[in-house]
C-alpha cells in the first residue's frame, strides 16, 4: 500500500460493509496539506468500537487477516505531521447514524506517499457497488473535480452504473475534469 488512493479505497470499502447507501469521498489539496474525508450513512460504530480502531491487536486477534487499515493510515498520516480523526454515530444511538473518517497528510513532507490513481479508485468503487450513491469531490490547486452517482442516476434512469459504457464515460469525464484542473 504505497499510494494513498489504496487507503481511500480501504476506508470506503469499510463504509460499504457498514451498509451505507450514500458515501461521500472528498479530497482537498491546499497549501501544505492533503485532506481526505470519507463520510457514510452506514450502521456506525459505538464509542467502544471507535476507541479500539487504533489498536491493531484488537482486530488482528479477532480475524488474523485484516484490521491494520486504520493503524497503518494513522501511522502514515502522523509520519507527515498529519492525523486521522474518526467520528461515528451508531444506529442504536440515533437515526442519523454513520461514520466520518478524516485523514490529513503533510503533502510536502519527505515521507508523504503519492495519492495515486483516484480515477481508477472511483471506478473500482462504482463497479463493485453500483447501487451506492458515491459523491466524489477532489479540490486541487487548479480546480475541482466532481462526480455524483445520484445525479448520474437521474439522467440514466434504469441503466446500472456498472455497465461498461457508463464506466467508460465516467472514466473519460473524470479524465477531462482532471486535465482542465491541471491546465488552469
Amino acid at each position, binding site marked *: *500500500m*504505497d499510494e494513498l488512493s489504496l487507503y481511500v479505497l480501504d476506508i470506503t470499502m469499510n463504509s460499504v460493509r457498514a451498509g451505507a447507501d450514500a458515501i461521500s469521498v472528498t479530497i482537498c489539496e491546499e497549501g501544505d496539506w492533503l485532506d481526505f474525508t470519507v463520510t457514510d450513512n452506514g450502521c456506525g460504530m459505538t464509542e467502544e468500537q471507535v476507541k479500539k480502531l487504533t*489498536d*491493531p*491487536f484488537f482486530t*488482528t*486477534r479477532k480475524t*488474523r*487477516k485484516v*484490521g*491494520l487499515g486504520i*493503524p*497503518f493510515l494513522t*501511522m502514515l498520516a502522523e509520519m507527515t505531521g498529519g492525523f486521522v480523526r474518526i467520528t461515528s454515530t451508531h444506529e442504536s444511538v440515533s437515526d442519523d447514524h454513520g461514520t466520518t473518517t478524516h485523514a490529513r497528510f503533510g503533502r510536502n513532507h519527505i515521507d508523504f506517499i503519492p495519492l495515486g490513481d483516484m480515477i481508477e479508485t472511483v471506478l473500482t468503487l462504482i463497479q463493485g457497488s453500483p447501487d451506492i450513491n458515491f459523491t466524489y469531490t477532489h479540490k486541487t490547486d487548479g480546480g475541482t473535480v466532481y462526480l455524483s452517482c445520484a445525479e448520474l442516476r437521474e439522467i440514466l434512469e434504469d441503466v446500472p452504473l456498472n455497465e461498461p459504457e457508463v464506466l467508460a464515460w465516467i472514466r473519460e469525464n473524470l479524465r477531462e475534469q482532471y486535465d482542465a484542473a491541471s491546465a488552469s
Partner: protein
Amino acid sequence: MTVKEAAAALQLSLLCGDDSREITGVYVGDLLSRCMSRVEEGDLWITIMANINAVAVAALTDPALIVFCEDVEIGDDVLAKASENGIAIARSAQDAYALCVAYASIGGAAS
C-alpha cells in the same frame, strides 16, 4: 541457525521472546503494509519501524526474530505486546546493510 546463535554472532541484544527458534530466511523492510505480505514464517526481519504496528505485522507473519536496527527507540508498549504474543525482539546499533552482510558472513541465508 537459532535466534540465540544469531544474536550472539551479530551482537544483538535480545529483549524478549523465544531464542530457540530456527531462523529460515531474512527480510529487510520498513513499509509495514509491504512487510505484511513479504515477511515469511521463520524470517529474521530487520526494520527501523519499532512500533506497535510492526508487532501486529509480526503476529500475522510469524518471523523468528524482529531486529530493530540503528538503535531506534523501542517503547515499553512494543515489548509488552511482543512478549504477550510470543514474538522475539532484538536491538542492534548497526544498520540493515551491515546486519545482512554480517549474517551472510556467518552462513545465514535468505529463504
